């Protein structure tokens, strides 16, 4: 177990992160949703306490317990009052290393997982991303759904969850991080006490294969009574550790990462066609995905898609101008101070770097490396990686309101 510490004494709070490098990308085919299920089951009774007793104990300490889900990993994120950090960490230690994994709680959680699928379908943006992952990353573990499907959730057993915990939650895999109002020495002592309870070190998950793009495809996810079309479009991109990753981040920012970028200017500022529009690189260890999001009204959907695809094709063929590169670099360099402004920000950046296989000084050297990238390098990366011919387009909308040529139509509740 290794420990990350970011000290700050302005507020009487401590954030504790416990990261396990086995996210939903490692769920076996047919068992999608296992990582989320098993990780949540850890806190449903632990250390000789029932689920109700664990809940009451965290609440009594004023601790907010949440889970952060990445494709590559999964983390408990606990925020507590500084005066309660010791009992909070003792509870978290029990959750991680002494879980009850009771059959009745497994069954209850299974029912909750099925209900969560219903809740997910009420949110069009989440639904669009779920289908985008499915089609843009088809065949790759990142294409698997972290929430699972009805069939996969129903197939999960208590023994699946127990095997997941045994395989993934041990001294070598769990990375603990602390941020806030405690000293480094105290954090190390608390981590050491937690480590005492950890099972002996086991294996770490193997690396995943690189992400690759497929062919262009448009999928209309048919949902009734939609006034708008919630659109995600994009394709695979290189991993964070690739030499082109930084140049591509600059290119992405120039295309649609700021309010004055090409994409946002044309779609929102000039035409008012979408309130929400932009692009970003969705990060994961084995490969990013480049994603554009736009939400036009149903009657503007076809025109908006045509505009976005045209803008993208133009940008991909020549890349950004020198001026656009300089602007994006200045924006990213100046804004980086906010990425690492608070202790919890810095802890999060360090955990992400660890999860994605980046060097520990990744963020300390970020601005220097960023400003060293040349416009030619950015253009070369853009031309190499931005691929309109591989664009997968997922549109959540009412099929009776939109005619998308060549689109496959799937019911919104079919996955």
């Amino acid at each position: 177990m290794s420990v990350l510490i970011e000290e700050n004494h302005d507020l009487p709070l401590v954030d504790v992160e416990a990261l396990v490098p086995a996210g939903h990308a490692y769920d076996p085919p047919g068992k999608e949703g296992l990582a989320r299920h098993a990780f949540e089951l850890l806190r449903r009774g632990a250390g000789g306490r029932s689920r109700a007793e664990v809940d009451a104990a965290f609440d009594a300490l004023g601790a907010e317990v949440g889970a952060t889900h990445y494709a590559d990993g999964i983390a408990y994120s606990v925020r507590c009052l500084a005066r309660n950090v010791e009992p909070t960490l003792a509870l978290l230690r029990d959750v991680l290393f002494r879980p009850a994994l009771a059959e009745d709680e497994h069954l209850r959680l299974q029912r909750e997982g099925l209900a969560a699928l219903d809740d997910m379908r009420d949110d069009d943006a989440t639904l669009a991303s779920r289908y985008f992952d499915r089609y843009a990353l088809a065949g790759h573990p990142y294409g698997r759904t972290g929430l699972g499907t009805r069939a996969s959730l129903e197939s999960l057993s208590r023994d699946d969850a127990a095997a997941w915990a045994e395989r993934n939650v041990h001294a070598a895999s769990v990375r603990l991080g602390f941020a806030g109002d405690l000293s480094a020495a105290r954090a190390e002592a608390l981590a050491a006490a937690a480590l005492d309870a950890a099972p002996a070190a086991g294996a770490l998950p193997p690396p995943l294969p690189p992400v690759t793009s497929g062919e262009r495809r448009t999928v209309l996810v048919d949902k009734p009574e939609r006034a708008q079309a919630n659109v995600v479009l994009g394709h695979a991109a290189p991993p964070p550790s690739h030499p082109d990753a930084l140049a591509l981040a600059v290119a992405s920012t120039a295309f649609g990462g700021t309010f004055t970028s090409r994409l946002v200017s044309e779609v929102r500022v000039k035409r008012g066609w979408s309130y929400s529009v932009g692009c970003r690189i969705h990060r994961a260890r084995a490969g990013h995905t480049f994603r554009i999001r736009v939400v036009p009204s149903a009657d503007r959907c076809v025109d908006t898609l045509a505009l976005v695809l045209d803008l993208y094709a133009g940008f991909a063929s020549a890349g950004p101008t020198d001026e656009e590169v300089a602007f994006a670099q200045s924006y990213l360099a100046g804004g980086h101070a906010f990425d690492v402004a608070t202790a919890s920000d810095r802890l999060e950046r360090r955990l992400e770097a660890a999860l994605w296989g980046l060097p520990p000084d990744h963020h300390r050297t970020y601005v220097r490396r960023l400003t060293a990238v040349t416009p030619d390098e950015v253009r070369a990366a853009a031309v190499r990686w931005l691929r309109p011919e591989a664009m997968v387009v997922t549109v959540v909308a009412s099929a009776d309101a939109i005619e998308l040529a060549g689109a496959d139509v799937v019911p919104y509740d079919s996955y």
Partner: protein
Amino acid sequence: MRFETRHPFGPALTVERHRLDNGLGVILLRDPAAPVVAYQTWFRVGSRHEAAGKTGIAHLFEHLMFNQTENLPAGEFDRQMELAGGETNAATWVDWTYYRDSLPADKLELAVRLESDRMRNLTLTDAQVDSEREVVCNERRLTVDDDVEGFLFEELYKLAFDHHPYHHPTIGWMEDIQGISTADARAFYRAFYAPNRATVVVVGDIDTETTLRLIATHYGPISPADVREPAAAPEPPQAGERRARFAKPVAAERAVYAYKAPAQGDADWLPLLAAAEILTGGQSSRLWRELVVEREVATSVSAAVTPFRDPGLCQIYVTLKRDGSCDAAEDAIDRAVAALAAAPPDAVELAKAKNRLETSFWSELDGVDGKAESLGHYETTLGDHRALFDAGRRLADVGAEDVRRAAAAYLVRDARTVVVVEPSGEPADDDEDDAA
């Protein structure tokens, strides 16, 4: 510029308030933890100030503030801010509108210059208003028309308030948004955007004297406005429960049970917040335990007390499972409320609620943006940012009987509004296809 107040902010920091002769309030908090600054301008104008037929103008105007001024062409505000590595945004709610700039600390002068410029020199063209009106219509489609939760809460306020302007949504009714003209926007600007209706909040790695000098230089020449703010129509006491039910394409029911609640500045607001926390805060709370864990009829239940200048609502929001029903949730809520109104919580349960609220209280102050938002909200909504610190102290003093009394006084059925959304069709079989 005259000094007004000074107050400690935690063990090491100090917050000060100053005021320009033109009435502009200036709140400064030097926080050198990181080389960043939050620069926020809070205006005492929100959707409560809108007239019938012009709902949504406060929010639409907030969008228009990012357009051109007499000194800057269109797009230049955002371009200069982004070139400096800054993020800008804004928000409008019932009682306020605020503009936020998050910048590297050495770019403070840029924020002072651009924000003071658009406070008095904004110019609007029909083309810009047309485009931004369309953006806002799309925002409404996104956050209300196609969002079941947004829809449900819009219907709640429409039903719960008859007279007070909290009745209408901050984003506005669609037909009103579509009817707002450039002339309307200009009139709104003249009426409400002036230094004597605003507070600038600056938090970060700043030099206090330099910051005050910059602000005095750039804002000092701006004239105050002669503003006569009409009092919002008071909402008469509610005499009887109100209910509405709607069908939407959802798999399961959702419902909100909302009780008339005191204003944030009222002495009963924190005890009622503690009551709400006891009912739904955390997985061991009374209603979460019953509805989500034991009876498994809901996927979540939460409660909130509105932080409004005038009396608002205490809202209990439940998302049901397919086989759960609002009837079951309502029965549980009624019993839990009655129990809390009849008997104060024991010491353990009260301490639990207060610990959770304390964590939440401090969490809102994380980072320079969070600190500035809290100071700006309390200054604008309650008239004094120091009410923030009072809230922290008063929370510690809330007793079990205070909680019981607040529950008994406010969580009453006659002052309740219930809005339910139910599935418009048969639940899907959820059969999965094999396409990939």
